């Protein structure tokens, strides 16, 4: 790994560390989403997303934990705010809301973020903001919602090349593995058939993500990177039997997780 890639890998682990601490105060929460999307978010925030020009949409509101952590690491959010995550009266609600800081839009009701990204990209076109990108994180479970495909068709028909979608394919939804509930494969072929520039990569491989996102940025068509991930990646201390959608993190396990990540970051 070159130095840049190495620093993105460290950023991913710092996102994980923040997320562990944010969830630990509750004993349970959306840690799996942060673990699966850590490299995706690190690569996006470290290499693609330019806050002053671009927009970022976190379609599944359950993923704001990772976005908050990334934003805190990148100077877009006061790191002290992370301690309030999910607590009464905090702007940082566990499932994103209109008050969620540092992001342009999030949706607690799943499957709606791609339409919003389309709206932002359309606005950029109307206003002549040709350089602007709209980065949108989508989860694989969300692909079960029909609206995603309405938006996908529209984006390709209108050639909205400023859209870069990342699908966190962690194969996890509330009732179990996505693959057991609905066959969404072949995911990349579906996007391709809808007219998108589509790539399928290991979502924990920073170099693969960097390369895919570079191509996505250059694409004239809307581009999607399907990132294959898992909800326990990066924390060996987690039992393989955890519910990835909503992780139980008792104090002792939280201590182990913090120690593991701090050791790796040292």
């Amino acid at each position, binding site marked *: 790994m070159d130095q840049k890639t190495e620093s993105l890998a460290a950023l991913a682990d710092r996102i994980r560390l923040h997320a562990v601490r944010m969830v630990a105060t509750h004993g349970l929460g959306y840690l799996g989403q942060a673990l699966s999307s850590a490299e995706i978010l690190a690569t996006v925030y470290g290499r693609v997303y330019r806050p002053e020009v671009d927009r970022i949409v976190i379609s599944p509101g359950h993923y704001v934990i990772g976005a908050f952590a990334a934003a805190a690491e990148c100077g877009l959010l006061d790191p002290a705010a992370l301690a309030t995550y999910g607590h009464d009266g905090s702007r940082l609600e566990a499932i994103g809301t209109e008050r969620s800081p540092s992001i342009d839009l999030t*949706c607690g009701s799943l499957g*709606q973020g791609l339409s919003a990204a389309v709206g932002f990209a359309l*606005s950029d076109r109307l206003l002549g903001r040709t350089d602007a990108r709209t980065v949108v994180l989508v989860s694989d479970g969300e692909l079960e919602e029909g609206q995603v495909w309405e938006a996908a068709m*529209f984006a390709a028909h209108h050639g909205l090349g400023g859209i870069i979608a990342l699908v966190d394919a962690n194969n996890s939804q509330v009732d179990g593995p996505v693959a057991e509930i609905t066959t969404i494969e072949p995911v990349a072929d579906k996007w391709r058939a809808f007219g998108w520039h589509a790539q399928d990569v290991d979502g924990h491989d920073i170099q693969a993500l960097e390369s895919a996102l570079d191509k996505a940025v250059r694409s004239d068509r809307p581009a999607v990177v399907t990132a294959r991930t898992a909800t326990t990646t990066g924390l060996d201390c987690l039992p393989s039997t955890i519910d990835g959608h909503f992780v139980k993190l008792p104090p002792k396990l939280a201590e182990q997780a913090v120690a593991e990540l701090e050791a790796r970051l040292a």
Partner: protein
Amino acid sequence: MRRPPYPTVLKPYGRTLLDLARVDERIVCLSGDLTRQCEIDLFRDELPERFVNVGMAEANMIGIAGALARAGHVPFVHTFGVFATRRPFDQIVNAVAYPNLPVRIVGFMPGISSPGGPSHQAIEDVALMRALPNLTVIDAADATEIQQVVPAILDHPGPVYLRLKRGEIPVIFEEGYEFSMHRAQRLRTGGDAVIVANGMMLPSAIVATDILAATGIDCGLVHAPVVKPLDAATVVDAAAGVRAVVTAENHTIVGGLGSAVAEALAEAGSGARLRRVGLRDTFAEGALTAHHLFQTYDLTTQSIVDAVWGVLKPGGPAPVAPTSPAAVGEYSPV
């Protein structure tokens, strides 16, 4: 105001929106594959760069509109009322109502004006939109009003649902009519009864008021195009001292104008009896024409007369509403 048969005009909404958009670049026009039907072929043909046909994808259309509004545009979203509200309800909640964005959702072909069967009839759209925080809900009655509603809602800070008749639009109000977002229109005062109506039921309410007046009943008339927020003060004031309040709406009597008036009267402690003319918790089947549906489901001038008569019980049979024939290019109530 005029009496039927009314002259009609075509596309008063479409012309007004285009006039505004020519000088206001914030306006973006979205269509759900019903462009001519929603009068926005005028917009498409003259300002194609700001016209977006989203196709048959209402959920996506609302999501796009929400993001456009966040980015500073003023999106006007168009489809039939039934598809504008039922299909993308969750999207309206999350992408428009909760963030309180200036999206204008314009739903054509209200209530049982569609002969397209229950799948095409927006009979509960007002109830759905009225239940949502931040929404303003308007059921406009005629071309004069429509021409004023569109500029009135342009800079309203939150979302608006505007319900419009499709096709030939009657001209009921004379020059000088002034639409208000905040005031209901007290078209006539009356000491015995008051009728509260809007949208396509206003012409019937006007005729019913005249018929009742001719029998010696002092019947008032309130036109309430803004169903939410309802001008409760005007309604309560008009109802003070009368024995009967009758609402008339081209919509189910559950959750629309009749419900809004009932809430206002009950909270004010009004002693007037209330009758609601509208669809009585039913879908409406079996029509080639809207005329047939209005008669079958009791949304006529006679329905309003009978409702007032039934409360006041002045003795003898209720007066019979005349049928008012309309030539081509004219409009008369059923």
